[in-house]
C-alpha cells in the first residue's frame, strides 16, 4: 500500500510539471491561436535562469522563483510583439513554424554558452529532508512542488473565472468574432497573455531545476509529451489540460513502477492514450469540436 502511495505521489509530482506546461500552452492557444513550439525551450530557460542566478550572482532559489518567471514573461511579451504578432492574420501554421525555429535558436544559444552537460542545482536548504505524513514520508521539496503547482493551477483557474481579463480570454477563446463585435479590444490582451503563458513555463522550469538535470535539451522532448497531453485534454480547455497533465503523470509513474520490465510502456503510454482519445473523441476529452476552418 505504501509503495502504491509512493508511486502515486511521484506521478502527481511529474504530472504537476505537465499540467503547468499544458496550462500555459492552452492559455496562449486560447487567446492567440498559437501553438507555441518554443514552450519547452522557455521551460528550459527557466531552469537555466535559476541556475545562472545562483552560480553567477548567488541569488537563492526563492528569489529565482520570483525573478525568473517575471523576466521570462517580459521576454515573452517582447517575442510576441516582435515575432508572433506580425503573423497573427496568417494561417496558424506559420506561428507554429516560427516557434519551432525559435526553439532551435534558444537551445543552441544556451548550448554555445554552457555546453550540453547537465548541471546540478541543489535543493533549497529549507526543503531538504522529508515530510512525515504518519504512514509514509515524502521528500519535502517534491511536496512543495506539488502544492505550489496545484495552487498555481487553481490561481489561474480563478483568474480566468473571476476577473475581467479572464472573461476576455474565455470569450475570445470561445467566440473570437463575437467578442470583437461586442467592442472588446481583444488585441490589447494578446501580448500580456502570451507573456503570462511563457512565465508559467518559466515557473515550471525553476521548479524543475532542483529535481531534474539542468541542460539545454531538457525541454526538447518534454514539449512533445505536453502536446500529446493537450490533445488528450482538448487544446484550449484549461481544465482539460490540467486534468490530462496530472492524469498522464500518474499513468506514467504507475507504468514505470508496475511494468518496470517494459520501460517502453511508461514512455509511450501518453501517445497510446492520445491515439485512443483521437479514435473516441477527436476534439479531446474536454475539448469542443471546432468549426472546420
Amino acid at each position, binding site marked *: 500500500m505504501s509503495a502504491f502511495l509512493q508511486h502515486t505521489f511521484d506521478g502527481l509530482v511529474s504530472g504537476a510539471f505537465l499540467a503547468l506546461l499544458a496550462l500555459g500552452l492552452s492559455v496562449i492557444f486560447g487567446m492567440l*491561436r498559437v*501553438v507555441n513550439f518554443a514552450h519547452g525551450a522557455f521551460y528550459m530557460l527557466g531552469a537555466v535562469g535559476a541556475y545562472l542566478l545562483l552560480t553567477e550572482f548567488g541569488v537563492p532559489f526563492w528569489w529565482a522563483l520570483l525573478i525568473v518567471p517575471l523576466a521570462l514573461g517580459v521576454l515573452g511579451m517582447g517575442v510576441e510583439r516582435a*515575432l508572433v504578432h*506580425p*503573423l497573427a*492574420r*496568417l*494561417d*496558424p*501554421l*506559420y506561428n*507554429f*513554424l*516560427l516557434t*519551432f*525555429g*525559435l*526553439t*532551435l*535558436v534558444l*537551445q*543552441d*544559444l544556451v*548550448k*554555445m554558452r554552457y555546453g550540453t552537460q547537465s548541471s546540478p542545482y541543489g535543493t533549497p536548504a529549507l526543503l531538504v529532508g522529508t515530510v512525515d505524513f504518519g504512514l509514509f514520508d515524502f521528500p519535502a521539496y517534491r511536496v512543495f512542488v506539488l502544492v505550489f503547482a496545484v495552487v498555481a493551477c487553481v490561481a489561474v483557474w480563478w483568474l480566468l473565472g473571476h476577473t475581467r481579463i479572464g472573461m476576455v480570454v474565455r470569450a475570445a477563446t470561445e467566440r473570437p468574432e463575437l467578442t470583437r463585435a461586442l467592442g472588446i479590444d481583444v488585441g490589447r490582451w494578446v501580448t500580456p497573455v502570451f507573456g503570462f503563458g511563457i512565465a508559467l513555463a518559466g515557473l515550471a522550469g525553476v521548479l524543475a531545476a532542483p529535481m531534474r538535470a539542468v541542460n539545454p535539451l531538457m525541454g*526538447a*522532448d518534454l514539449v*512533445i*509529451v505536453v*502536446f*500529446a497531453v*493537450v*490533445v488528450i485534454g482538448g*487544446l484550449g480547455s484549461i481544465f482539460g489540460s490540467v486534468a490530462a497533465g496530472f492524469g498522464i503523470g500518474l499513468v506514467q509513474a504507475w507504468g514505470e513502477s508496475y511494468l518496470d520490465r517494459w*520501460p*517502453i510502456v511508461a*514512455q*509511450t503510454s*501518453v*501517445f*497510446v492514450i*492520445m*491515439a485512443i482519445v*483521437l*479514435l473516441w473523441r*477527436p476534439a479531446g476529452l474536454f475539448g469542443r469540436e471546432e468549426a*472546420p*476552418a
Partner: protein
Amino acid sequence: MRKPSLVRAATGAPRWVRWTLLAAGLAVAVWLPNGLYAAVAVDILCWALFAVAVDLLLGFTGLLSFGHAAFWGTSAYASGLVAIHAGVPFPVAVLAGALAAAALAVPIGYLAVRRTGIYFAMVTLAFAQLIYYVANNQRGLTGGENGLQSVPRELFGLDLTDAYYFYYAALPIVLLGLWAAWRIVNSPFGRVLVGIRDNPARARALGYPVHRYKLLAFVLSAFLAGLGGGLFAMAHRFVTLDTLHWTTSGKAVVMVVLGGIGTLWGGVLGAGLLVRLEDWLSFAGFESVGLVTGGLFVVVVLVFRRGLWGTAADLLRRRFHLRR
C-alpha cells in the same frame, strides 16, 4: 477569418520555359557531384525527395506533418535491415523500406486526419515521437544509441564504395520519385487534394470522401519520404536514431518553406541550400548549426514566406503577364 491560401493553382508557364527549366534541372542533377563533394550531393538527393514528400502534403493537401521523420527513419532502418539480412541489390532494400514507411503511415494517418491544421501537426509529431521511443527501446533490432552499423550497398557486384558512383546509382530512383510526385500533383487525384485544401466543406458536399483522400495522400507522401530515407541509409551505410528525431521532421519542413510551400520543386532547392549550408558550417568548425538554421527559418517565415521558388515563379509570372 479567411486564410490566405498557401499556394496558388499551378498555371502553366509557356511551354518553352518549362522545358528549359526541366533541361536545366536535369543538367544540374547530372553535373552536381562534379561541383560538390559527392557525399554532400548524395545527401541533397535524399533530402530533396523528403522535402518534396512533405510539400505534397503541406502545399497540396494543406496538412503540415511535423512527424515525417517517422517515415524517413523507419524506412532507413527497414532498408538497412533488409540490406544486412537479405543481401539484395540496394534499390530493392530501399523499396522495401519505403513500403514499410507507407505501411506505418496507414494507422498514423488514419488517426491524424481526424484533426486538421495545427492539431494535425501536433498529432503527427506525437506519433513520430512514439516511433522514436520504440526504436530507442528495441536495441536488438536497431542498435539503440549505437545505431545500425555497416549497411551493405550491393548492386549486382558493381563497385559503389565511392560516393561519386553511388550518386549516379541513386539519381534514377530520386528522379523517379520526383516524377511520381509531379504526376500525383497534376492528376485528377491531385486536383481533388487541392480542392480539399482550399475548401474541405465544399469537397465534402461534392461527395468526395475527404478523410480517405487525405489518408491516401499521407500514405503516398510517407512512401516518397521513405524512398529518401532508405537511400539516406544506403548513402551513409549506417542508421542512427537521429533519423527518427523531431528535429529531422523540422528540417524537412524548413527546406519546404525555404524553397516555397506548394511549389513542389522549391523543396528540391531548399534541400540543396540547407544541406550545403550545414556542410559549409560544419566544415568551418561552427557547431551551432541549429542557431543558423533556426534563425534562417524565423527570418524566412517572417519576411520571405513564399520562399525562393515561390518568389521566382511570381517574378516570372509578372514578366510573362500570366494569370495567377
